[in-house]
């Protein structure tokens, strides 16, 4: 029970972090048709910027400035990069962001080196928030959840209650009509791309110190985020939300569960000889399978529902 409660909370905080990433990715994708391969790279930049700024200004200014800086970088990427390749079609756009993904990783190598940097949880938040049974729960995790929820609520309000939000929603379904009504769709695109990147940057700021800030973090988180959006259905915010929380839980629970198919067979009174060729496969515990599990679940989802959980788009 104790294990369950702690894992549930960890899964929730990780899931919310994933949604900070996948929501931006989904908004950009459904609006511009571009899957930003480098999305998690902006997450990484957020973490590194925050690390650098914390050294000069402290954590709180960094919490605000780093995501904004990442957002500006994102907007510039859209303006001077994506807009140029747009005329060559979606494949070129995806390739461009793929190239960017490699490039950002190399730039991080160049500036901050290959080893992890010492980006820490600020001292003010480095205490135990509460105790469940006998385990104390870190305050920073609670802070992470609060920031994520706060940010996502304001995003929701922005999209539903403001003029710019309405324009964004309208551009999602009818970009040409919105343009015909006199709105500057390219600028809306730039804002959305920058905003999505800023969200990713924020996730980096609050996630980088909770986990680890290193050049490999973009690749590690990036593939999970892609699994999330494909599983949830590309272009669906609701799908991305459900999938984010689901994979947050899957990731936290699976690493700790030491059951294998062998145990399952045991329940039915079947035992497998150690010499059997199947022993290797059957004895794999869920914890051992944890790295493969998200991809396996994605493939299963696609076999059952090719468009994903809540997706409607064919391409």
């Amino acid at each position, binding site marked *: 029970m104790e294990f369950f409660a702690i894992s549930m909370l960890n899964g929730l905080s990780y899931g919310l972090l994933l949604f900070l990433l996948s929501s931006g990715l989904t908004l950009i*994708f459904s609006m511009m*048709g571009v*899957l930003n391969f480098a999305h998690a790279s902006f997450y990484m930049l957020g973490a590194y910027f925050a690390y650098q700024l914390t050294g000069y200004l402290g954590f709180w200014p960094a919490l605000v400035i780093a995501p904004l800086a990442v957002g500006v970088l994102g907007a510039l990427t859209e303006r001077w*990069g994506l807009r*140029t*390749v747009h*005329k*060559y*079609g*979606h*494949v*070129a756009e*995806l*390739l*461009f962001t*793929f*190239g*960017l993904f*490699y*490039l950002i*990783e*190399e*730039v991080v*190598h*160049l*500036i*901050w*080196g290959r080893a992890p940097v010492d980006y820490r949880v600020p001292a003010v938040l480095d205490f135990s928030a509460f105790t469940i049974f006998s385990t104390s729960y870190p305050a920073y995790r609670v802070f992470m959840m609060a920031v994520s929820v706060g940010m996502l609520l304001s995003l929701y309000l922005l999209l539903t209650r403001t003029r710019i939000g309405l324009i964004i929603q309208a551009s999602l379904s009818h970009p040409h009509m919105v343009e015909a009504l006199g709105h500057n769709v390219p600028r809306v695109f730039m804002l959305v791309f920058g905003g999505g990147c800023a969200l990713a940057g924020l996730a980096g700021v609050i996630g980088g110190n909770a986990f680890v800030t290193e050049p490999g973090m973009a*690749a590690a988180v990036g*593939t999970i985020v*892609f*699994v999330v*959006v*494909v599983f949830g259905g*590309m272009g669906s915010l609701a799908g991305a939300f459900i999938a984010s929380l689901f994979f947050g839980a899957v990731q936290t629970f699976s690493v700790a569960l030491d059951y294998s198919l062998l145990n399952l067979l045991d329940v039915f009174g079947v035992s497998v000889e150690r010499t059997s060729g199947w022993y*290797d*496969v059957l004895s*794999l515990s869920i914890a*051992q*399978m944890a*790295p*493969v599990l998200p*991809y*396996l679940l*994605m*493939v299963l989802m*696609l*076999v059952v529902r*090719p468009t994903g959980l809540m997706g409607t788009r*064919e*391409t």
Partner: protein
Amino acid sequence: MRDLTAKVEVPSLETASLPRTRFALGRQLALWSVVAAVLLVLPLLFEQSFALSMLSQMGIAVIFALSYNMLLGQTGMLSFGHAVYFGLGSFVCAHVLNAIGAGALGLPVTLLPLVGGLAGLGFGIVFGYVTTKRSGTPFAMISLGIAEMVAASALMFPAFFGGEGGIVTDRVVGDPVLGVSFGPQIEVYYLIAGWCLLCMIAMYALTQTPLGRMANAVRDNPERVRFIGYDPTRVRYRMFCLASFFAGIAGGLATINYEIVTAETLGLMASGNVLFMAFVGGIGHFFGPVIGAVLVSYLQSALSTYTQAWLLYFGLFFVIMILFAPGGIASLFAVHAAPLRHGLLSRLIPGYLLCGAMLAVMLLGFIALVEMLYHFEQGAALGREFNLFGFHVDVTLLKPWLVAGAVFAVGLAAFLFTLPVVKRAWAAVHVELQARDA
């Protein structure tokens, strides 16, 4: 309301000129004879052992990159996981080779790549079924997911993947056949060259078949394909399986060449690498990926010995290519074909020389800055003083930074300033070409 009178725009990664599709058989025969002759002579020109292993590596890369282009260039499927089929073919071959070595199997090593191909085909049939259900961006994401899944399972099944150390094997098995033992690298090179030629011919021939032509149609307009009797999903699936087959052959050759297979061969990096080769070479032309495979293989081994920053240069090169020459190197050649035929090439050359010189200055400054930054950041490992283009540079001083920065800035400004010269020359050539066309 869409404008009915609008023409279908060409969403093209290449120029508007069509590659000539109707090679006469005789000309093809001549072409392949030349390729065969080149493959035969190459190792005689470069005798060092370094060159020989380089050539072997290139041969493998050529097959792999061409097989990748069956997906991207010919069928419009952007895969981030093609190395899976190369790698799995490679692993299966390593186990088969070990079995041959142990005397459990009798199979000539010459035919081993075929085993790799069949393994690639088998896995392509299984994974391709899921992957090709979708097209476009979802296809790309699913291919990535499957690649990650296979890469992650590599650590779960050490018996097959050999864990961190990989599977080691020995290509010299049994008695020599006709004096060939595959011990010396030169024999391996000719094995690779032979398979490379065979695969190139087969893949080229494939583009001339009904399936190959329909693959292009699916790439261009999958919706319309459904209304001329074909199922685009099935076209994609078949092309995917065949591409996996050729990737597996390349993997099998890699097993023979390196005598070791690690999980890295099927990882994301390897998949990105083959994409890079095909794209840089040019996905719109059959021989584009060949250029890319040769060039990238060479640069990788050449640059990585000189600089730590080679991946950065590669990344930049790739991004700039996508931005300004999305048709790859092959398309750069192709756009000059018409001016060459009409004897107009000489009008372009002065501008190219001028602009190229400025570009070289800019690159010099840029490379200096990057190298200095590396030495500054990783001074502990690399030393803060080093030799750069023949100059002794101490990165703790301000002067080298100013000089390098100035060279870069001046080069950039001069490049942008001289660019219109090239543009004007091209405009004049276009006018001239159109006049002659009419």
